[in-house]
């Protein structure tokens, strides 16, 4: 169950439209390392996670990613509102516009539609947490790449906030991996998969 809170996690107040940069930033909505994929990854992985600390972190980070997706969408929306047909053609946003007008649709910067193949839910906590840590770093790199292209401080500021959260999440997933390994055989972490082989009495 989720409840909506009618505010952004961090404010987005952009006064100047910029459809060119919106086309780049939209990748963090529906691209391969975007916030939608992040949220779906963690919220999908948590059902079979046997350790309560890690189930908690997957739930809470998965939830925060939804708030990040809303911030990215707010940025894209504010960068593209009230555009004229001339501005659309000049900026190259016309190719997006023809299919979606100014509506938000999850796609990568290159136009590839969002897909569940952007993430894995493997049913093995070591495998999934390595994927999660990699995902946070990939998202951090994407924000670094965006920040090299953005000049407007009103856009940079919320992007920097989102970038920092990737680093915090990476740290928490690292701690989660340690918690998982503490439950396993330290001589061979791979003797069993605790999401499949573990006797419930041993948990």
């Amino acid at each position, binding site marked *: 169950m989720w409840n909506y809170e*009618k*505010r*952004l996690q*961090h404010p987005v107040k952009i006064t100047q439209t910029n459809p060119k940069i919106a086309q780049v930033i939209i990748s963090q909505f529906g691209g391969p390392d975007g916030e939608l994929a992040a949220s779906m990854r963690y919220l999908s992985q948590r059902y079979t996670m046997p350790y309560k600390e890690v189930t908690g972190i997957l739930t809470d980070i998965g939830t925060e990613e939804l708030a990040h997706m*809303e911030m990215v969408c707010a940025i894209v929306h504010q960068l593209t509102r009230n555009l004229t047909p001339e501005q659309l053609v000049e900026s190259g946003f016309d190719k997006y516009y023809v299919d979606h007008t100014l509506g938000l649709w999850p796609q990568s910067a290159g136009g590839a539609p969002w897909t569940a193949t952007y993430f894995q839910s493997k049913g093995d906590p070591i495998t999934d947490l390595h994927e999660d840590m990699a995902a946070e770093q990939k998202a951090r790199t994407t924000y670094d790449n965006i920040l090299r292209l953005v000049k407007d401080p009103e856009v940079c500021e919320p992007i920097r906030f989102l970038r920092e959260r990737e680093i*915090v999440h990476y740290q*928490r997933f690292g*701690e989660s991996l340690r*918690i998982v390994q503490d439950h396993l055989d330290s001589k061979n972490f791979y003797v069993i998969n605790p999401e499949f082989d573990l006797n419930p009495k041993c948990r």
Partner: protein
Amino acid sequence: MTENKPNRQELLEWINVVSFAVDDVKLFLDTHPCNQEALEYFEEFKKQRVEALKEYAAYYGPLTLDTACTPAEYWCWINEPWPWQEGGC
């Protein structure tokens, strides 16, 4: 009542500050559930957040359904701008 009315922007910034403190320490507590310092920090900011959300709802409309003190004749949840809109939170 109007002389004690809090500034909307300042109150909203405060809600963002205390909410972020709660969001951040919540993740830390997931992986450090026995950390006393973090537990106290959580309690303190959770309390401040609940109070600030109630105060905001009383003057400027609800940000959460739990603080919606809507009059019987009108559904005020949809009244204030949405977060991505002009004047939104």
